């Protein structure tokens, strides 16, 4: 039996919520010290555990998927593993070089050319200059940027940009590769290309890979083992089908009355569909309510509908021509809407949110789920099974 290449033992990570917020200027901190001179220091800051007593071992060559809802601790786990942030408790033992890819294009500089960025990014990701040089042609070929090598990347299309960024990272040759949801950017062609490369890295080159994704199809295709996280703990660890099943089951349970944090400021208080389950082709109403811990502007917002395997099917764009919404602790954002004929094929769908406020923006996955049941059409042919019919039910007429 091979010894584990990574051994995670009782890792916990605590974040303080209040402390950073109350004194984030030196002036406030000095005032705070001056006031608390001679007084007992009462630490009123809130804290929460992003990771709680996480334990697992990874054997060399294993490809592990990490799945879970938003706030389950997946990204924090990767950050602790890649030493970006320090655990509050526990220990991790590592053998070999670990490279992390938490975002494509970290350290890319807009003014520099493709060639310059390949070297810069490669070194930032942990390659030596000699390694980058040896891999240079392969990277250029993979990224298909041959002609634009000496053009500043600010002139690249966004597709070229992410492909180049991924290409550099994909040619890292560490013993352990840690990858966060990087495939979420880019189009389908990009995703396929990247998945193919990841498969190659994982299967043919025997690397150990830890891979966070909401794309269950990708996870299922790549990973031999899955760690299912929730609330900072490991909920399940083992066979992909069982873990994905458990996760999808968890997603289907509605959030009731609990606000889900969307980043530091915004929280999702309600995201509901009515009726749920909905019969395919019938009208569907939705309600969204967002709250905020401090006053901010909600610039864009869209409800995202995904298939069970994480492919985006549709969005509900909530922007208006009249501009942005102000959102504050006493002023939530509330929106209701109605879809006349809900056109999706029966099955389970996962619902997320894209949210852009003044301070940050991001996609948030699995905030709700939606079950669509089959329409019964009397006097017609029995339809094909759902998995033959794709995702969208078209309305059409035929002539013969």
């Amino acid at each position: 039996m091979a010894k584990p290449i990574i051994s995670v033992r009782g890792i916990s990570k605590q974040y303080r919520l209040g402390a950073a917020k109350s004194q984030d200027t030196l002036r406030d901190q000095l005032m705070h010290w001056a006031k608390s001179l001679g007084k007992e220091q009462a630490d009123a800051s809130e804290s929460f555990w992003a990771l709680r007593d996480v334990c697992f071992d990874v054997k060399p060559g294993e490809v592990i998927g990490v799945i879970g809802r938003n706030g389950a601790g997946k990204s924090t786990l990767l950050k602790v593993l890649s030493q970006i942030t320090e655990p509050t408790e526990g220990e991790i033992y590592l053998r070999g070089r670990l490279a992390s890819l938490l975002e494509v294009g970290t350290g890319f500089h807009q003014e520099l050319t493709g060639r310059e960025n390949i070297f810069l990014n490669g070194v930032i990701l942990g390659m030596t200059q000699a390694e980058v040089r040896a891999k240079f042609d392969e990277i250029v070929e993979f990224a298909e940027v041959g002609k634009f090598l000496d053009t500043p990347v600010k002139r690249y299309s966004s597709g070229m940009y992410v492909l180049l960024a991924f290409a550099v990272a994909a040619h890292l040759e560490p013993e352990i590769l840690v990858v966060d949801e990087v495939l979420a950017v880019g189009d389908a062609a990009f995703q396929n290309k990247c998945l193919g490369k990841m498969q190659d890295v994982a299967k043919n080159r025997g690397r150990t890979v830890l891979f966070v994704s909401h794309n269950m199809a990708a996870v299922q295709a790549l990973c031999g083992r899955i760690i299912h996280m929730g609330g900072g703990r490991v909920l399940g660890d083992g066979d992909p089908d069982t873990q994905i099943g458990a996760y999808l089951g968890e997603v289907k349970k509605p959030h009731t009355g609990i606000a889900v944090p969307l980043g530091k400021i915004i929280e999702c208080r309600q995201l509901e569909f009515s009726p749920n389950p909905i019969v395919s082709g019938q009208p569907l109403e939705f309600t969204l309510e967002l709250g905020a811990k401090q006053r901010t502007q909600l610039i864009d917002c869209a409800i995202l509908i995904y298939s069970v395997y994480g492919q985006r099917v549709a969005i509900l764009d909530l922007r208006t021509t009249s501009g942005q919404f102000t959102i504050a602790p006493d002023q939530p954002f509330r929106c209701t809407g109605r879809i006349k004929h809900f056109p999706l094929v029966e099955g389970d769908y996962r619902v997320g949110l894209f949210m852009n406020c003044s301070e940050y923006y991001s996609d948030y996955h699995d905030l709700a789920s939606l079950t669509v049941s089959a329409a019964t059409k009397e006097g017609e042919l029995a339809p094909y099974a759902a998995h033959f019919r794709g995702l969208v039910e078209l309305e059409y007429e035929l002539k013969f």
Partner: protein
Amino acid sequence: MTAPEPHVNELADYERVIRPKKGLVAVDFDELWRYRELFWFLAWRDILVRYKQAVLGVAWAVLKPFLTMVVFTIVFGKLAGFSEKKGMNFETYAVLTLAGLLPWQFFANAMAESSNSLVGSSNMISKIYFPRLIIPASAVISGAVDFAIGLVILFGVMIWAGVSWQLHLLLLPVFFLVAFAAAFAIGLWLSALNVKYRDVKYIVPFIVQMGLYASPVAFPSSLVREKFGDTVFFLFSLNPMVGVIDGFRWCVLGGAFEPYWPGFGVSIAVIAALLVSGALYFRGAEKTFADVI
């Protein structure tokens, strides 16, 4: 990889252990050495970007010290009459000013760049691991190119002024290193503080502005000692740039400008203290950078 030895802890052959660090954290020089390429690449990036964007990049590096020298020489040398007081001609006073300006401008730029460097790299810090000390250090290095351009001007002005070349000139790199250490030491403190307290960035221009007058840039430091005596001069030397600038002048103008060595010692001691305390503070604060940046 080392082969596992019998009868040792089963964990002994793990190369790396991640665990919470408690108390003072020493600087890991081995690790810094392993990441030396990243250090050079970041400095290279800063330099490339600086001189690429602006055609004026190089011109600016020439004009800034040169024009400041002209203004200072006229205002302080002629109007305030410092040059006659020290029995110097106008040309020598210009060299004296430039020999003070170069290290000062290097220090001021490098310290400012370095102080903002961590916040400016927040994206890298929250996504990639590397020894964080590299960031403020490489920001200091990127100021060295402006300095090198300035040196060329200095040599030109020396020829114009007819200053005799001193053997001391060979010591210039030593004093440059001292200036580097001073900028880096303050950069360490301010960059780490800046991550946590965002108003620190307002302190930097203040230090630069006050420092210009609290450093012997436009006048020889011997004036201070003659006027106020040794005690005041020791206090004056608490400003680390006093030692650096005196050293530069000595290299360029020679014997008559030999630094008052006990005062120089004070400057060096201050730099050393700032450097060690800055490194320890930085290492202690480092573990929360990614969480608060």
